[in-house]
């Protein structure tokens, strides 16, 4: 048992930081989280991911046969930490790397792998995730967007919601229902669809998190070649479940929370508040909770590094992270007061971006249910 980084892990982090400081200059002065890549800054992101790809740092966690280096889980988490702490300059491409690519490796045909993986590993393509629906949120498997086979095509009708990253996305990883009579997990099929396919309409949902955080995607008689089906018909659920195993603590939110706290402490010092016992106590409590969340997230990474799967370690780690983000957000408002309300400012960003913590990627309460059932072995409610 040990809790330190190796020499090569430290060197890797240092090299990444150098690279980021060079490519994303000035971020340390205003580390506002770039929530969503707009159509306008897509080129900037592509430029960054192409350079990352050239350094071998876009898909290093992938196996060598798909252009990766089979990077260790610990190096992957270092990469994630460094990216997330600067506001995720890879935009939605982090999803490509973390689970969309791996899902294609796992379930795709040879032709699909040749077609979809190289653009991802070159940093050229933007995906979004078509999962949630108005009637399928936490109960995702009850999704209803219908795909009906018609010759060598599927015809898709339905609606997705809370879809992030649509402004930059070119492709959607869409979950559809192909067998409405089967038990709900057994009738789901994955389709990979270009977003400019006729019949797809995207409406942005005005939100309080940050401009363009999520959208609705309407699909009306969208015709998709059967060649774009990932995995077998009606077997999509198991692919998604496996692929998302790696995404459960995908975003290194603890690293950003830690960085934000450092910034808050600097600001507190600048206005003479750091010596205030109440402020000092709250900063210290928040840091303690953030660091505990980090150690719990690392317990998930440790299992990943040892290829231990099917455990429930990620659920408490996620709950801990939500608590940490909320404590940090409270500090911004309580300590800095109305200054934190100024739109687009660093302080404003903290509270508003924390709002998604307990919802995105599976709600806080679902994690509690899973802990109660799978970890504590409590009887079904």
């Amino acid at each position: 048992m040990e809790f330190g980084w190796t020499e090569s892990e430290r060197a890797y982090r240092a090299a990444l930081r150098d690279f980021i400081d060079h490519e994303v200059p000035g971020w340390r002065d205003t580390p506002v989280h770039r929530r969503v890549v707009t159509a306008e800054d897509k080129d900037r992101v592509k430029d960054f991911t192409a350079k990352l790809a050239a350094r071998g740092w876009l898909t290093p966690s992938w196996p060598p046969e798909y252009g990766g280096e089979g990077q260790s889980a610990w190096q992957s988490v270092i990469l994630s930490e460094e990216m997330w702490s600067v506001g995720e300059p890879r935009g939605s491409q982090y999803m490509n790397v973390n689970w969309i690519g791996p899902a294609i490796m796992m379930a795709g045909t040879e032709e699909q792998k040749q077609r979809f993986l190289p653009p991802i590993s070159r940093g050229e393509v933007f995906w979004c995730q078509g999962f949630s629906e108005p009637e399928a949120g936490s109960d995702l498997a009850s999704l209803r967007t219908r795909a009906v086979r018609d010759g060598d095509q599927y015809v898709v009708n339905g609606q997705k919601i809370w879809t992030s990253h649509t402004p930059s996305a070119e492709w959607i990883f869409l979950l559809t229902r192909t067998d409405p009579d089967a038990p709900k997990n057994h009738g789901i099929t994955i389709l990979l669809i270009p977003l400019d396919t006729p019949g797809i309409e995207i409406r942005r949902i005005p939100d309080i998190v940050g401009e363009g955080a999520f959208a609705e995607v309407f699909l009306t008689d969208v015709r998709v070649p059967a060649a774009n089906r990932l995995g077998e018909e009606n077997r999509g659920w198991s692919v998604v479940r496996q692929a998302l195993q790696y995404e459960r603590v995908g975003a290194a939110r603890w690293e950003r929370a830690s960085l934000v706290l450092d910034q808050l402490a600097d600001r507190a010092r600048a206005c003479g508040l750091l010596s205030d016992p109440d402020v000092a106590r709250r900063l210290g409590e928040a840091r303690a909770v953030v660091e505990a969340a980090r150690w719990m997230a690392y317990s998930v990474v440790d299992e990943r590094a040892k290829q231990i799967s099917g455990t429930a370690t990620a659920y408490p780690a996620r709950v801990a992270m939500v608590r940490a983000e909320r404590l940090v957000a409270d500090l911004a408002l309580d300590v800095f007061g109305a200054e934190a309300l100024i739109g687009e400012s660093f302080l404003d960003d903290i509270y508003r971006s924390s709002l998604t913590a307990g919802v995105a990627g599976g709600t806080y309460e679902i994690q509690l249910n899973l802990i109660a059932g799978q970890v504590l072995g409590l009887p079904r409610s």
Partner: protein
Amino acid sequence: MDYTLTADQQATVQAVESLLARHAGRERARKLRDGHDDELLAQLTDAGFLDLATDPEAGPLEAALVTEVAARRLAAVNVGARGLVAPLVLGRTPPAKVALASTAHPGPVRFARDAHLVLVLDGPDVRVLEPPPGPARPVPTGYVAPYAVPDLTGGQRLPGAGPVMARWWRVALAAELAGLLRAGLDLTVEYLKQREQFGRPLGSLQALQHRLAEAYVWVEGIRWAARAAAWQGDAESAAAAAAYATMAVRAVAPDLHQLSGAISLTEEYDLHLWTMRAQAVRTELGGIGEHARAVTRLRWDA
């Protein structure tokens, strides 16, 4: 990073577990109430479990693991002070019975009665009271641990040793709380699985499940924060672990009683053996506020 115990660590934990299964536990704790377990102390000492911190083959992490297990098994011995804090402050093997005190936080001191050695945190320094100048005055307490008010005057001064003592004290108390709260939670989960009301187990009610799950998250966090701090050995990690662990007591201990109902307020039911001790440990070194402010001081040089 590696979250798996090494074979040696595994063997140590198993050995101390089996010793504690024989010589500690609920029955023993109930019998001793606020007494000290001389017999167990002798067993732990003879087996070498209290000499791991300065053992070149082991270290502070191993000592913290023993502290965690001992707390879970309700050892009425100051395992953290004797096995982790004192050897690292003194750089030598301390006498059998050790207590830790702080001039900034006066009041009753755990395990001070009959202590052979009291380490006093005195600002930047440590004073070594070996033996203490006079008898400690026993204090009645319902917190299931021996308390007394010692005479803290005099002693040999170790200039500049204060931060070292504070650091390992924090690691020790975090490790102890990891064990105490874990055992309290385990007991509560088992109780709610079998306690039926309205024709079904209370543990099947989602409102209660969520609170147990919340408690689990706190407890799991202490475990890793304490172990990481023991391994890293730096002041900031130690303060963070202690702050988190004491916050966890505040959040979890009352909930465990609340979820178990009136039975948990009786001496007959064992929950209090862990939770009351946890509350006692929570008060050490100034508690949550002092640990949290220490984090801020150390992290941001405030």
